[in-house]
């Protein structure tokens, strides 16, 4: 109490520090930007209302695309993470290569590779009855995004599993539990709590990264924005799209904070 009163006194004394002035100035710039954005939306309400309906449809496509690929990615990531932690060389090596490729190359390059690269092998895919998958741009995006996020999620999961203390496994073994039960009942639940925060980041990255789908003709939020912009040449379309992405990410962030509070309440002291 005494200490904090003292520091307040010091801060008040040096009220015009360089850092503080710069901070106020930057804050002022941000406020100006926010005000002009708000003004742009309010002053041209009718136009934005018209954009908003189409953009909402695009946002729906974005959420569907990201949601399904995250789920598929999650399913794929568990065996990948286990292979990465495996004591046998071959699965460890293969999983390493997979993760290395998908984390080491840009998502846009992977998307083009699958969409335009595989598109050239129509004969082959028709023979194996998979052309329906590669014909449709939405499915192509879904495939690439799933494979991509699986690599990232596997790394998150692998790190989290490795950071669960050895003593937990040993205690389980001492109690005579089977290895499978130890993994699913003791290690994995604790690992998932550790992985929660990086998982949240991965979802946010996927929401933003999914804009790449617009380049292979999927009308997601970015696709609808590009189409509207090409007809109106109105920069505010991008402003509105950015705000909608921001709302999605911010909503997710808040949900994640609540989720984390709920799941880690037993760790609070």
């Amino acid at each position, binding site marked *: 109490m005494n200490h904090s009163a003292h520091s307040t006194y010091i801060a008040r004394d040096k009220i015009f520090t360089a850092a503080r002035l710069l901070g106020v100035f930057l804050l002022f710039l941000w406020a100006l930007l926010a005000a002009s954005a708000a003004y742009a939306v309010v002053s041209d309400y009718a136009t934005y209302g018209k954009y908003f309906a189409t953009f909402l449809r695009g946002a729906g496509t974005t959420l569907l695309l990201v949601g399904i690929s995250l789920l598929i990615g999650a399913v794929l990531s568990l065996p990948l993470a286990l292979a990465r932690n495996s004591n046998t060389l071959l699965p460890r090596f293969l999983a390493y290569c997979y993760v290395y490729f998908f984390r080491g190359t840009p998502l846009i390059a992977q998307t083009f590779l699958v969409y335009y690269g595989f598109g050239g092998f129509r004969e082959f895919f028709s023979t194996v009855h998979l052309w329906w998958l590669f*014909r449709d741009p939405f499915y192509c995006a879904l495939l690439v995004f799933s494979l991509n996020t699986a690599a990232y999620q596997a790394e998150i999961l692998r790190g989290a599993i490795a950071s669960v203390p050895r003593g937990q496994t040993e205690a389980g073994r001492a109690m005579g539990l089977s290895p499978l039960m130890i993994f699913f009942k003791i290690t994995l639940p604790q690992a998932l709590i550790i992985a929660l925060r990086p998982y949240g980041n991965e979802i946010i990255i996927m929401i933003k990264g999914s804009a790449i789908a617009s*380049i292979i*003709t999927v009308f997601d939020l970015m696709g609808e924005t590009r189409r509207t912009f*090409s*007809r109106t040449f109105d920069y505010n379309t991008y402003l509105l799209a950015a705000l909608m992405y921001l709302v999605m990410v911010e909503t997710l962030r808040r949900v994640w904070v609540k989720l984390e509070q709920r799941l880690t309440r037993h760790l609070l002291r």
Partner: protein
Amino acid sequence: MKSTLSKLVTLVASLSLITTGSAFADGHLRIGTEGAYPPFNNLNADGSLTGFDIEIAQALCDEMQVECEFITQDWDGIIPALLANKFDAIIASMSITEERKKKVDFSEKYYNTPPAIAVAKNSSITSASVPDLAGKTIGAQGSTTHSNYAEEKFSQSEVRLYPTPDEYKLDLENGRLDAVIDDVVVLSEWVNSDAGNCCKVVSTLPIDPVINGEGAGIALRKGEDELREKLNAAIKAIRANGKYAEINNKYFDFDVY
């Protein structure tokens, strides 16, 4: 602190200066083009530009006695780049439309050709009629009069938009698309080349002046009236002195004006 602030102020001030300044003040004109729209404008593997647009632009520059520099820019951002003063004129087969006129000024047209529909050689589509294309997938380059035409006229078809013609050509070839729409000259050139031997032009479409505009013109920033008048005079001049016909005959077997 003072220096940091003044630096910031200078930065902001100089940023706002970038967007001002007049085109073509010193006998030097910067021309923006796309470079992905053969035979009108195409960026070759060695980095050189060729095509009808480029040669017409060069002829206009010679006529106006100014030095011209070509700058390539992706189609989606070509009008914003003009407005941001990255170049002074767009000569890239841009159709003169009401939507674009709200943002930029145009010269008189320098050519005018109709849109057309191309399909795979073994396609069941035999005409470019609305019922024939209903339920089919049509590809077009985004931000073009052709994409607007497709969305407007073929509302019962699914329209997919691509960044450049190269991509819709790939997708027509591999069967993701049932048809593509673009300028008849562009599609004819493609299907007659080795790259386009998968496909054929079904037929041309009637020009809709509201969508297709008055033909291709040279886009300029608003208020560049002196430049516009000079370009209009130069277009008239090369039409009159045979230079236009000479370039036209190199590319087409009919007059595209």
